[in-house]
């Protein structure tokens, strides 16, 4: 009997050389995207914390105001760097899903990942319209 994804997986018996599961798709691009996003956002937060600890003032503005964020980063102020880090944190899962689409291309799982990306796009649309 075929499962929900329309395939039988009766012989899942070994891992592939890069450590991925028997279903075969590599995970390198996805894990790289997640790791890079983690490191960049962590760097932004470190800068923000350091600026906060040394007592740099912060003048918060709308997070949707790109010029305000850039201006705050160049002053420098904690808010601008923290905002950039937050944006990267929110965006990184989507980038990871894009990498997953590429890793699974041609397979049903790629459509699953695209579906999740579509849901995130709906969330972004709702957020922008509020």
């Amino acid at each position, binding site marked *: 009997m075929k499962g929900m994804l329309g395939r039988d997986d009766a012989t899942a018996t070994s891992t592939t050389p890069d450590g991925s599961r028997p279903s075969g798709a590599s995970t390198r691009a996805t894990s790289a995207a*997640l790791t890079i996003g983690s490191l960049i956002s962590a760097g932004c937060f470190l800068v923000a914390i350091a600026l906060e600890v040394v007592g740099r003032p912060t003048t918060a503005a709308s997070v949707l105001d790109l010029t305000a964020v850039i201006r705050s980063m160049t002053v420098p102020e904690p808010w601008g760097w923290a905002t950039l880090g937050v944006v990267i944190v929110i965006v990184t899962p989507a980038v990871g899903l894009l990498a997953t689409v590429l890793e699974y291309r041609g397979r049903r799982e790629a459509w699953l990942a695209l579906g999740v990306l579509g849901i995130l796009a709906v969330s972004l649309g709702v957020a922008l319209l509020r």
Partner: protein
Amino acid sequence: MSLVVIAFLVSIAAGGFGALVGIGGGLIIVPVLTVLLGVPIKTAIAASLIGVIATSMSASAHYLDSGIADRRLGLLLLLATAAGGITGGLLGSVIDGRVLALLFGTLLVFVAVQMIRQRAALPAPVPHDDPEGGFVSSYIEPSDGSEVSYRARRLQAGAAVSFAAGNVSGLLGVGGGVINVPTMNLAMGVPIRVATTTSTFMLGPTAAASALLYFSAGVLDPVLAGPVALGVFIGARIGARMSSRVSQGALRVAFIAVALIFAMQMFFRAITG
């Protein structure tokens, strides 16, 4: 000691434990920020969501590369969980938090009791020719190198519960793992280690769907969310490295304890407001 430093230190501990059991750490961060540090609850929830995403990002890379997290199952359930994250984030502005806290606390006690009763019976391997729905998969158990086969069953029911988990994530600022993990383990037949790692993989996109809404509503304070996310990131790295050295039984016990603690926190919030 400043609020930023305190939030940072607490988040390290929360992130480590969250990565270990796949629950994101929000159940610790939100109460501490609101009760002990006086942060408005929606601001605390928004900061916690950023921490949840950071946990997922940090730990998922390791879990995916190790082959333990079931990405296929995670993507399937993510369709429901992420959608729930949107509705949870939207509903957060209208639903009385005390009522939701009471309902969630009750659910957690139920889940913890069910897992306690299942403690002695770990999921048995499923024969490859078992003619049931869902799909068969396997992973290499890191503690002893054995290959463990399993069949993820009841996908539709799992998706329905995942939708509810996404709603809870958006409403309370937790990862949803407290619902996803027992659902995958008890209802779907997925081994606990796969359930926790797959749940961790699912946390990121789910919380991102909610965080966008809090971000646009102006209740997300980046200066607070930053140290929370960084602390969780550091703690999650530590937790991810330790996960392969912890037995499945120990993970189950830890999850039961955390679920009961979280339940008590929810009852307290429901009573006191």
